């Protein structure tokens, strides 16, 4: 650890715990508390990554959790950020985005080709010829790789969590700690989150030579820890702000969805870089990064440094570095007048020479750009442009930049805070904050330490007052005063470029100039064209300079100019964190286990799991389904229809309510009888269907489609309120198990178990009866979706499995078969019954679907009536009709959604089609032109390969057109 300094006060590493790890087969030893970056730097390893496009070597640059190029992967993890990830024993890392490793990246030649890749190159170069685009795309993806996902890595859960507090304070610097303490002292529950492993903010790295400042951190933390209602969460980043103070907190384990009653953002500022040639090479870093290395990790950032600055912080940094034995070759101050504070005198006393009104013109690279060996300084003219005369070169292995700050305002801006440019500070500051959101400290444009604490206290008390605490006095906002800590234009042009504005995306000054020349002269357009701010650091070190460059080139002031839109998340968050624990609610009927034990193949129906069919040894899927169909047609079958929506509608206005909700008439429906229901929306489009069973004068039991139940129940509740009718609505879908016993022998089976008189005279077709089945209270509906004599049996859910078992047992003598959804689909198609959603679409009205018989336009009112009156008068543009292929047909069959073609144009589509085992031919339904709907017409259907097939229009029902089988007792046709 050649660059490890002697112990520093307050350092974050534990020197008693050495940690050994490997980077590209090189063994590295660090201390517990080191990040990958600091451990490597301590060992003299300066190349931590390669840049995105040009594969230039990159080292530590910000060390503020925003270094974009130090990205590694291991066998278990991808995209490991070296600046934020603590080292652990045995970790084995490989850098991403290199060809051959960090030191010998064979893709380094891209740096030489960079003149051929101007901004927007990809958009212009690769769109033609079109057929080559897949080739270009794959090459670009290879070149711009950011690691590969190891799909075999062990699954790691990152369960998300909700949490709640009164006041959330983001940032634990002097202002954040003061805010949290002030709010907690009011008795409120306060969460203080700090993205670093240690709280203290700038007090951890900008207090190096001042013991009083370090003690201040200790004092504040001691006070905070005494407050029972104040919880400090370290290594936790507030990454996203949503409505009503919902903040996404990201820690190494999980995402916490924190709902606060008010939020104080005191996240400080991000130091901004200067733009000069080679400002990206290892050895060039922000002054705060160098200070963090020294004070938090006891790592020597350089041996000899040039400090480029435009504020007091740069002078302080120079003194800090000087104090730990680093030779400060000079300070280059962009300001012609230099530093006005006492720091200038301290620097002079330390023997550090200051070049006023000068800038770093370029960093002198060496060792194949893997490090620097000098800084070329130039003087600036009155406009701040570099003068070509009088340049001097200073030897150094590092350049430290401190030219300005930008507030960590991501959360504020996500919360719709209006930011405005403050010329006194040369930075954006919060101008108008939404209710419950507060800013404090440097984020708020307050820079003096004492003021930051005062401002923090003010924000904490204001947040407490917002939560309803009885705060006696909330201090006034502090004045934002200069001198400005930021330089208005820390950008130095260079004819040979490589003066980077955005390190994430390898964007140079010339790229911005070119984009603006091309007309992308609005900050949002410029962002999208150049891609600045789109990399991992999300523009934290480039957005402000981009805005400065744009305004300079357009000759405008930044005042009244907005920055780009801020969106969650402020920093990269792993997909695992976002996914969390997977919750996929699904529903099961009470007979689910029986289905599984009987070999059911399950399918998804809405959020239900339903048996598609019951696997039988020796039979194919198709044969099995046909056997189930045959059982229903010839003996008896039982299907679980518990997934149907079931709604109880009671009250004196129940009949009136149903009249209004559905298209047919129900007011005079006899007690003990049921009727088909069709529901339309206001535009007359069919949206649901089912059956209404009248249990009493003021009670109906209504079924809906499986997928429609929740939506229909909600819609009914809404209308009941709108119409102010006296109805009681209960969505009883889950409360009742339901099964359909169907087939010629169904009555025989049920008779053994029920006390209800099943005689057709006592219990006619469409009748409804209540009684007992297998000792359980049941509602029975004599309906026939599958076209056979049958009973829909509804029983309380927790008795469903019992009743099902008893029916199967009682039906054994009749060779009862369970049947699934697929068999039911064939059975209903044979009967020509439509399925809403399959045989209709989002525009289908009843007249097109042949359902006009279910629409009673002469009723007083129902939803969709007005539209249907209009539609009724208009000529139809399509008709749903049955079709069939001849018996014995061999060849390709139409499929659902195949198009019906008439004279080369689309006339409609096939909605349902199947082979009918009962009829021995392919049957289906399709939308056709009205002129084609006549029975016997031939229509053409285009098959998958474009081949056309002719089918014959047939009247439905295909099977038992007289409905004899469900309404009269039909002798069992025994098939040998």
């Amino acid at each position: 650890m050649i660059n490890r300094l002697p112990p520093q006060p307050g350092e974050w590493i534990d020197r008693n715990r050495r940690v050994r790890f490997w980077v590209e087969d090189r063994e590295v030893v660090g201390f517990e508390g080191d990040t990958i970056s600091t451990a490597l730097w301590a060992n003299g390893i300066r190349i931590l990554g390669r840049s995105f496009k040009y594969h230039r070597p990159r080292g530590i640059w910000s060390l503020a959790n925003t270094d974009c190029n130090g990205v590694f992967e291991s066998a278990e993890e991808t995209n490991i950020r070296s600046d934020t990830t603590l080292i652990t024993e045995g970790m084995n890392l490989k850098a991403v985005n290199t060809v051959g490793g960090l030191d010998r990246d064979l893709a380094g030649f891209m740096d030489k080709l960079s003149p051929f890749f101007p901004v927007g190159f990809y958009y212009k170069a690769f769109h033609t010829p079109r057929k080559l685009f897949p080739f270009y795309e794959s090459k670009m993806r290879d070149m711009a790789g950011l690691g590969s996902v190891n799909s075999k890595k062990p699954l790691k859960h990152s369960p998300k969590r909700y949490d709640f507090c009164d006041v959330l304070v983001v940032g634990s610097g002097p202002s954040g700690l003061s805010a949290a303490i002030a709010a907690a002292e009011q008795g409120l529950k306060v969460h203080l989150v700090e993205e670093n492993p240690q709280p203290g903010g700038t007090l951890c790295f900008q207090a190096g030579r001042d013991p009083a400042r370090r003690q201040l951190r200790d004092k504040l933390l001691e006070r905070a820890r005494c407050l029972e209602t104040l919880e400090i969460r370290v290594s936790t980043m507030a990454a996203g702000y949503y409505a009503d103070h919902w903040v996404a907190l990201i820690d190494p384990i999980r995402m916490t969805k924190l709902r606060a009653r008010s939020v104080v953002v005191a996240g400080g500022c991000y130091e901004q870089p200067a733009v000069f040639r080679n400002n990206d090479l290892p050895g060039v870093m922000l002054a705060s990064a160098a200070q963090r290395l020294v004070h938090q990790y006891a790592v020597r950032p350089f041996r000899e440094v040039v400090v480029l600055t435009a504020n007091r912080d740069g002078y302080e940094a120079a003194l800090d570095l000087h104090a730990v034995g680093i030779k400060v070759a000079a300070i280059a101050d962009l300001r012609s007048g230099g530093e006005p504070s006492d720091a200038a005198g301290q620097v002079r006393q330390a023997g550090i020479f200051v070049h006023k009104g000068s800038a770093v013109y370029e960093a002198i690279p060496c060792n194949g750009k893997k490090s620097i060996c000098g800084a070329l300084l130039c003087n600036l003219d009155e406009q701040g442009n570099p003068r070509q005369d009088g340049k001097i070169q200073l030897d150094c292995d590092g350049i430290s930049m401190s030219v300005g700050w930008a507030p960590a305002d991501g959360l504020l801006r996500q919360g719709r805070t209006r930011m405005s440019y403050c010329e006194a500070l040369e930075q954006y500051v919060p101008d108008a904050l939404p209710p419950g959101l507060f800013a404090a400290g440097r984020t708020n444009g307050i820079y003096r330490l004492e003021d930051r604490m005062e401002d923090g206290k003010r924000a904490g008390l204001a947040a407490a007052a917002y939560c309803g605490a009885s705060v006696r006095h909330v201090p006034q906002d502090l004045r934002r005063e200069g001198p400005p800590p930021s330089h208005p234009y820390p950008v130095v042009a260079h004819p040979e470029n490589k003066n980077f504005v955005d390190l994430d995306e390898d964007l140079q000054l010339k790229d911005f100039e070119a984009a603006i020349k091309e007309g992308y002269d609005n900050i949002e357009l410029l962002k999208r064209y150049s891609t600045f701010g789109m990399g991992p650091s999300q523009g934290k070190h480039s957005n402000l300079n981009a805005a400065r460059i744009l305004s300079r080139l357009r000759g405008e002031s930044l005042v009244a100019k907005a920055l780009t839109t801020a969106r969650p998340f402020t920093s990269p968050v792993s997909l695992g964190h976002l996914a969390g624990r997977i919750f996929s609610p699904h529903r099961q009927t009470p007979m689910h286990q029986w289905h599984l034990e009987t070999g059911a193949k399950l399918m998804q129906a809405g959020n239900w799991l339903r048996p598609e069919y019951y696997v039988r040894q020796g039979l194919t899927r198709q044969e099995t389904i046909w056997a189930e169909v045959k059982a229903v047609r010839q003996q008896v079958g039982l299907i679980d229809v518990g997934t149907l929506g079931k709604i109880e509608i009671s009250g004196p206005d129940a009949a009136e309510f149903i009249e209004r909700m559905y298209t047919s008439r129900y007011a005079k429906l006899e007690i003990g009888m049921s009727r088909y229901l069709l529901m339309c929306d206001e535009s007359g489009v069919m949206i649901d269907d089912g059956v209404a069973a009248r249990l009493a004068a003021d009670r109906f039991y209504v079924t809906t489609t499986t997928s429609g139940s929740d939506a229909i129940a909600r819609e009914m509740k809404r209308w009941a309120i709108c119409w102010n009718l006296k109805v009681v609505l209960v969505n009883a879908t889950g409360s009742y198990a339901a099964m359909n016993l169907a087939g010629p022998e169904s009555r025989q089976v049920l008779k053994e178990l029920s006390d209800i008189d099943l005689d057709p005279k006592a219990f006619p077709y469409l009748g409804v009866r209540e009684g007992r089945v297998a000792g359980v209270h049941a509602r029975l509906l004599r309906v026939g979706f599958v076209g056979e004599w049958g009973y829909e049996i509804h029983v309380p859910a927790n008795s469903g499995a019992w009743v099902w078992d008893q029916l199967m047992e009682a039906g054994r003598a009749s060779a009862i078969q369970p049947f699934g959804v697929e068999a039911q689909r064939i059975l209903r198609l044979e009967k020509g019954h439509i399925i809403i959603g399959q045989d209709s679409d989002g525009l289908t009205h009843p007249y097109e679907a042949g359902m006009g018989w279910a629409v009673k336009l002469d009723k007083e009112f129902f939803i969709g009536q007005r539209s249907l009156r209009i539609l009724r008068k208009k000529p139809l543009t399509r008709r749903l009709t049955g079709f069939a292929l001849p018996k014995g047909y061999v060849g390709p069959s139409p499929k659902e959604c195949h198009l019906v073609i008439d004279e080369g144009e689309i006339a409609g589509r096939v909605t349902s089609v199947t082979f009918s085992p009962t009829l021995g031919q392919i049957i289906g339904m399709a939308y056709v032109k009205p002129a084609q709907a006549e029975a016997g017409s031939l229509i053409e259907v285009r098959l998958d390969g474009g081949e056309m097939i002719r089918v014959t229009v047939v009247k439905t029902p295909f099977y038992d057109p007289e409905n004899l089988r469900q309404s009269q007792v039909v002798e069992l046709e025994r098939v040998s």
Partner: protein
Amino acid sequence: MTQKLKRLSPVKDALEELHPRWGKVQEMSVALSFQSSKPERLTRAELALCDLSCLPRASFKGPEAVSWLEGLGIAVPETVYQYSVWNDGGLIMRTDGQEVLLEDGPEGQGIARLTEYYEPARSGVYRVERQEAAFLLCGAKANDVLLETCGYNFQRPGDRLVMTRVAGVSCAVLPIELAGVPAFRLWLDCSYGIYLWEALYEIVRDHGGGAVGMSCIYPELVGS
């Protein structure tokens, strides 16, 4: 093996995998206890999940529901989402201005009696079939489980029924106290029962808890 009973818990199949000792409560097979190295009362104090779906319940809904129940001597809570204790271990919960949900304790017969009194022809009072899955989540760490599954703040003291979503499923949650530790009653559509049981059980296990049988919650059931 469970006995062949007419009533089955919606989560019976999930319970079966945990090899419980079965018993019968309210005509339903229930898990009285589970094989575990740790005594269930310790699990109960730390973090436990228990199936209480066997408890009979019914709602009475309609403009006359409250007065009808009060006429039968049932003290219906005054405000919506308030609850009170009913008979031996039962609950009366006001779920709406015109709806009251009642649940019996393990040996209560209140629902059966009310069903007898109830006349379907009576106008203004409608009996609603309630077939929810019902769970109890209890223990010092119970709220940690809800924090992973529910966006409602149960950290705040409260004694009201809360209509919310747990792991994506609509639930009624009632915060109570059980033997000095926080506890939450959950009711949900029984068709989601298995899903939610499995989701909660996985989280409970991750937090070091486990399933407990009904006899751990109702010691009087030990010999059932």
